[in-house]
């Protein structure tokens, strides 16, 4: 498997990937290099040159892979957040294209409007007909503005709930794909009941009579993520983050100042990586990404996500609804660490 994607250019937005950029440029140059003039194709000299070139490329690729492994095996929490936020990371629309067949989007909350930060619609994942909900950040400036950079308003949560209720009625399982820095902190959002919308979604999702699977594919920013994140099974992509607050928010409050140093400290302290969440029991599974992150090979990331969803939906469909709901409640009920003293 190649760790290089022809359209990918390292270090555009990930500072710690910069050492890779020079290597990647060399590889690209060698690969596209035309045979030297004068050496006719098929001639012995030309052939030797090609062999040399191929060996060189192979060597460079090996050191590239080694460097990539080294960087990604010791990524740290703050760099994980950067990967999760990278503009090159696959978004909901990529996974809808790569994992979901026949996606038919549904719009509007029937109360106020259509929040483009939240997408909902019918679609097939493997053999399963589903209702899919996702938060969308947008690919280019125009789309990002339209989607409010993936930060939903109350009407987004209410659209999601409306569609999930319909899924319940028609016996369709629900899949939510979460990628949001958080619910939007704005005047309109507060006026229209951001807190109420998120609260109601959690309550209703906890008792929705159909299987629910939630996957944090990028950013899992606090209540804004949880408003779509109550489920029978919760998973995270390997380099996603999920936490009660963003590292910057946490640093600003607890360290009194948010700068690269305190952000990194807060990110570590918050235990926000997929591995840490798995350890704390807040999620059930980590979905592996290709070496160097999903942005290097969205297809592999999508295949892994697809496999996880197909298998999990098959498992969940086997439960009687009352057992499913009891397990869903117990799952939530058991999250948390306390001690019960004797007195």
């Amino acid at each position, binding site marked *: 498997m190649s760790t290089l994607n022809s359209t990918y250019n390292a270090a555009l937005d990930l500072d710690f990937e910069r050492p890779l950029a020079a290597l990647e440029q060399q590889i690209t140059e060698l690969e596209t290099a035309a045979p030297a003039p004068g050496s006719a194709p098929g001639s012995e000299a030309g052939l030797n040159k090609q062999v040399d070139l191929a060996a060189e490329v192979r060597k460079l690729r090996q050191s590239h892979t080694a460097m990539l492994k080294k960087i990604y095996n010791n990524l740290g929490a703050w760099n994980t957040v950067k990967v999760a936020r990278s503009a090159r990371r696959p978004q909901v629309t990529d996974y809808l294209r790569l994992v979901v067949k026949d996606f038919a989007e549904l719009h509007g909350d029937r109360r106020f409007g259509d929040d483009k930060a939240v997408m909902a619609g019918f679609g097939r994942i493997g053999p399963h007909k589903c209702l899919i909900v996702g938060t969308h950040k947008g690919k280019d400036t125009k789309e990002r503005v339209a989607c409010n950079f993936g930060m939903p308003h109350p009407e987004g949560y209410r659209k999601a709930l409306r569609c999930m209720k319909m899924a319940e009625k028609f016996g369709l399982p629900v899949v939510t794909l979460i990628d949001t820095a958080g619910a939007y902190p704005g*005047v309109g959002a507060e006026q229209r009941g951001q807190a109420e919308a998120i609260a109601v979604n959690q309550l209703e999702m906890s*008792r929705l009579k159909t299987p629910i699977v939630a996957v944090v594919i990028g950013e899992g920013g606090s209540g804004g993520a949880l408003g779509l994140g109550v489920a029978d099974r919760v998973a995270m992509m390997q380099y996603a983050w999920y936490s009660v607050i963003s590292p910057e928010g946490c640093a600003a409050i607890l360290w009194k100042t948010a700068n690269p140093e305190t952000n990194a400290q807060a990110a570590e302290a918050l235990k926000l990586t997929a591995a840490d969440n798995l350890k704390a029991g807040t999620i059930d599974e980590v979905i592996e990404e290709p070496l160097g992150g999903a942005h290097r090979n969205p297809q592999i990331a999508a295949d892994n996500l697809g496999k996880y969803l197909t298998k999990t939906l098959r498992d969940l469909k086997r439960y009687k609804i009352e057992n499913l709901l009891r397990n869903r409640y117990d799952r939530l009920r058991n999250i948390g660490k306390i001690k019960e003293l004797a007195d």
Partner: protein
Amino acid sequence: MAENKTSTLSTDVAKHASGAGRTWQDVAPVDRRSDVPEGLWMRCVNCEAMSYRKQVELNLDVCPECDYHNRIGADQRVSQLVDPDSFEPMWENLAPVDPLGFVDRIPYAQRLEQEQAKTGHRDALLCGKAFIKGRGVVLAVMDNRFMMASMGSVVGEKIARCAELAAETDQPFVMIAASGGARMQESGLSLAQMAKTSAAIGRLDDAGGLFISVLTDPTTGGVTASFAMLGDVIIAEPKALICFAGPRVIANTVREQLPEGFQRAEFLLDKGFIDRVVHRKDLRSEISRVIDYAGK
């Protein structure tokens, strides 16, 4: 030596007179967040009127001049709200741990010890069985003196147990909410308490139970965005700050003047997100009335 001292003192006075070396602490009014201060007299943080401390206490910690509702701790709230000696605390043995080894400027474990010593409670929620005007209730009161009543695993667990007890015994669940939000020091585990408490309120709802949520100053963040906003009836104290994102965060995001009274109880009433704004002195009778109409 003595001369030295005098000269330092006079420099200080001079500095103050010129305004140099002054900090905001010197000029800021009494800290809004502080509990009612010690002393015979106290100054209202809202209207700055001086009142006899005893008189304010008799007035349920509401300013006699301007009706400003002071923030009060959980013990005081319980004693104001329930029939005398009727409160039976429950699950007092639940104590917080430091599951993530969280260290910011000081370790979470140390912070917990400090807060426990300060308040005499193990965490930020006082709950149990009580009577309000003769009506049996399951009562939970968030304690803003303990880490600003932030919700971690213990708070979430106790709320879930309260909701389950209320469902089992068919008694109303009365919640006096106040919180800075989910507790950062337990990170994802705190976040999950939002879902846990919401699910527990869902079960109470399925059982036909009554949940009365009373929002007091300030109710914010992950607490507003979970059980606090899920009351069958939602009551708020006058002028209480009730929000998801705090006003400062929003001002930073939108970079514009926020509307007058934004995110205060009356604003939420106007926007349709709470049922009633109720003066502290009327809370007992208003809660009792709701219980009676719900037939609990």
